[in-house]
């Protein structure tokens, strides 16, 4: 049943969001801390474990795959509802700060990826 997969996906998101919200309160932060990431971990764990086979295989699995495939259309809709006007109303300071932050972060991707890689390769050589 397709709804079983969709229900599992929903349960993972709700559980993750609850934990993320609770983490936010515990840390005294006005934000959900990693709710979506935690929900993704739940889905990875349940789709890798045998206990949830009935909820992730066959028709149930296609219920999850459908929403996974709807991801790009949803992102396109998300782009179409951004406050693009406000982004440019901030003037040059906002543009310079935003652009500079992105460029520096882009440049750091290969550097930090390397930290991870050299870590795994040194473990392999040991």
């Amino acid at each position: 049943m397709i709804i079983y997969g969709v229900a599992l996906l929903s349960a993972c998101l709700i559980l993750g969001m609850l934990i993320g919200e609770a983490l936010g309160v515990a840390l005294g932060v006005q934000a959900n801390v990693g709710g979506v990431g935690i929900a993704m971990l739940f889905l990875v764990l349940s789709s890798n474990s045998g206990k949830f086979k009935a909820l992730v295989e066959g028709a149930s699995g296609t219920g999850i795959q459908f929403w996974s495939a709807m991801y790009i259309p949803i992102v396109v809709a998300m782009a179409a509802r951004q406050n693009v006007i406000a982004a440019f109303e901030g003037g040059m300071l906002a543009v310079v700060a935003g652009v500079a932050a992105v460029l520096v972060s882009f440049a750091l991707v290969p550097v930090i990826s390397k930290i991870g890689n050299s870590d795994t390769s040194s473990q392999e050589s040991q």
Partner: protein
Amino acid sequence: MEILETVFVRNSLVVAFAVVGLTIWISYFLANKLTKGRIHGSAIAIALGLLAAYFGGKATGGSTGVADITLLGGIGLMGGGMMRDFAIVATAFGVKLSELKKAGLAGVVSIFAGVIVSFVVGAVVAVLYGYTDPVAVTTIGAGAVTYIVGPVTGSALGADSDIIALSVAAGLIKSILVMIGTPLVAKTIGLNNPQSAMVFGGLMGTTSGVAAGLAATDPKLVPYGAMTATFYTGVGCLLGPSILFFIVNAIL
């Protein structure tokens, strides 16, 4: 006209599916015909979405782009946080636990490095523009982290509303640039495997930007980048009004 409006408004989400479907069809057509597939169809679709959001905002004066146009209100629901998060979690289906473990440490490092680096860059730019008030500098720096961390930090520190608006603008610029720029720089920064995608998500942090940027680069990388990116805003909200503010306060 009235009939059209009634039907469109009553079925807003269904209208959104049709409009987005048409947009994606046009985008893939353009990608194949004009760029011979060199630019990903979804990259064009996202750029078209942002362009439409600009004109939607110009026409209505609202803050949610195309979704403020009555006939296209469903775009707001389809592209809102609930659907976005639901679909992001669904992309994790089929992800191997071993891939996540392999990049675990680099992923965590990237989240903290990303928040601190973006903050420092934003704060330095604020100082270069003549701001000396620690609260203003911290708020603008936090805006360069994400457009959520900016206002959260600003209101915690009691910043003026124009400074908070500035921090939101900086965060929005960042998010839009990540959406458009990621497919262009992907090759140069080695963004072609799960590990670098996790590091990328942690460094950029803007969930919308990472979500769209990776979708336009390689949809297979989306779950890895999204996983780390969703911790970023929380870490930013944690560090912004506390440690980072204390440091700025001590320096200025």
